[in-house]
């Protein structure tokens, strides 16, 4: 018999068991990951060259950790991301609740405006923020840390909270109204219903939204590029200038730290939510 005794031949829809598609998928994954993996590997390279292997070293990490500019930029980025995540999550949740619960005049227009930060090209938003923070509301340059990061934080919140609102609203859409009615029937007041029934249901959406806001903030280069000053360098801004003017394995080391951080954070969020985050972000 031609078939092996344990495995049947691939069925007509088992495309992943056919070699052309396997080859294609492998090639795409190599395309996506080979540059990133080699970037990480060469952060341990002895030579300054970023593509010829000269032996293992942790020197670049040592250099990165003692590079005060890099450490400050890193701290700035994390601070901006943390603050903007908290504020965007609150604003996003309020927006989602507002849209979910109420019917009001100009609702369609509000929804449209809310979608703008998602579709407006980053560059347009960047220059708008630049003009706003120089002409309308000049942000004082002599403020103490972290208040000097205010302009960047405000910009980040402006583009993040719409994303949070959409993710949380998607989650709210699956809320069973009967739960709320049951809670009221059992004697809970409006406020108790909110905390005991609605918030627990929203939780995975809030977590997914917060993760998205954090990633967007940490990832942002263009908008920050237009709102940061000489004292308020963020990690992407610093890496950008290093890439432009002196690409050394130190950049690789710093990048590796950031990749590990974001991937680790995502994995953590996935782990505590049991996969709800992926589903919420995928829009299910």
């Amino acid at each position, binding site marked *: 018999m031609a078939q092996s005794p344990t495995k049947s031949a691939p069925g*007509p*829809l088992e*495309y*992943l068991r056919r070699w052309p*598609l*396997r080859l*294609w*998928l492998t090639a*795409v994954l190599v395309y*996506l*990951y*080979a*540059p*990133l993996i080699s*970037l990480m590997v060469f952060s341990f390279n002895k030579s300054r060259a970023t*593509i010829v292997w000269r032996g293992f070293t942790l020197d670049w990490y040592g250099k990165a950790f003692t590079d005060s500019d890099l450490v400050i930029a890193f701290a700035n980025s994390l601070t901006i991301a943390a603050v903007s995540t908290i504020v965007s999550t609150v*604003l*996003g949740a*309020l*927006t989602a609740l*507002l849209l979910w*619960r*109420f*019917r*009001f005049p100009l609702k369609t227009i*509000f929804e449209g*405006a809310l979608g*703008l*930060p998602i*579709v*407006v*090209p*980053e*560059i*347009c*938003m960047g*220059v*708008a923020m630049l*003009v*706003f923070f120089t002409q*309308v509301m000049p942000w004082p340059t002599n403020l103490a840390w972290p208040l000097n990061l205010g302009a960047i934080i*405000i*910009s980040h*919140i*402006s583009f993040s*909270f719409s994303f949070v609102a959409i993710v949380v609203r998607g989650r709210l859409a699956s809320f069973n109204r009967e739960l709320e009615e049951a809670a009221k029937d059992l004697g809970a007041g*409006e406020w108790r219903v909110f905390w005991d029934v609605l918030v627990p249901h929203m939780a995975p959406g809030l977590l997914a939204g917060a993760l998205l806001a954090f*990633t967007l903030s940490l990832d942002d*280069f263009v908008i920050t*590029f237009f709102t940061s000053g000489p004292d308020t360098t963020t990690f*992407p801004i610093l890496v*950008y200038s290093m*890439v432009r003017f002196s*690409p050394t394995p130190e950049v690789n080391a710093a*990048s590796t730290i*950031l990749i590990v951080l974001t*991937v680790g954070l*995502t994995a953590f969020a996935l782990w505590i939510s049991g996969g709800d985050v992926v589903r919420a*972000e*995928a829009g299910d």
Partner: protein
Amino acid sequence: MDESWEKAKAVFATLGVAPVAWLVGFFLLPLAIIWGYSFGENSSLTEISVNGTLSNYVHAIKPLYLGIILKSFWFAALTTVLCLIVGFPVAIAITFASPRTKGWLLMLIMLPFWTNLLIRTYALMAVLRTEGYVNTGLGVVWSALSHLLALFGHPLGPFHPLDLLYNNFAVVFGLVYVQLPFMVLPLYAALDRLDRSLIEASLDLGAGQLTTFRRVVVPLAIPGIISGALVTLIPSIGAYLTPDLLGGPSSLMIANVIERQFKTANDWPFGAALSFLLMYMTFLAIAVQAIVTRNRTRRRG
């Protein structure tokens, strides 16, 4: 649900005030100012007078800038088509994988999204550089081939590395690299919703795999294809970092020109006009998608 705002004004205000104020104050207002500037001109070094002039827009459609706008659109369109070609088989592979494998593959496709765009672009530079992986690899193959041919008395000349970085090719290559996950996810979502027995029915009725793909899978995946194209096209048109780092002097895209007006040329009104042209292009793409989708759903009744 749909409760009228008048029934619970206090709750409505508590929920609404902060988001609306933020959206208006820190988003719509800045955009409105830019929009105003696009109809103004520099009256002194620091002053801009908004006098309703259209000269910035006229300036923007001069051949030099019109060429850059069209090139941005062309790069974005090419990127979208390439992403579609590369991404469709990937989406199919994920859709028809076993549930376990599916989870892993989705994770692998989404992971780059959580990696910093700047870092991803930097990683690509090492691949494409003159002394990068591609050229080094080609060099090795070339010299091996040369040695082999030398045995027959026809050695090849010295290897000339390909110019892979700082040109248009690098920009499109980089855009595809960055945008691919955004294409795959909506395609996957559309294919996953598709009733498998439709594909089986087509095979059952005598159509081969390719005919089935063309006549059943693609027509039914159109909504996914359209939304995938949109989420690829829009960020690509306004891409800044990719052309800035991977492109050469001739591969400027519209975002790079806008940045120059604000950061070096100091011609804010013109930059503002270009920004709004870019925004109009974006809205146009969204409107086209909305119309196409609505027509499809209406035709379906």
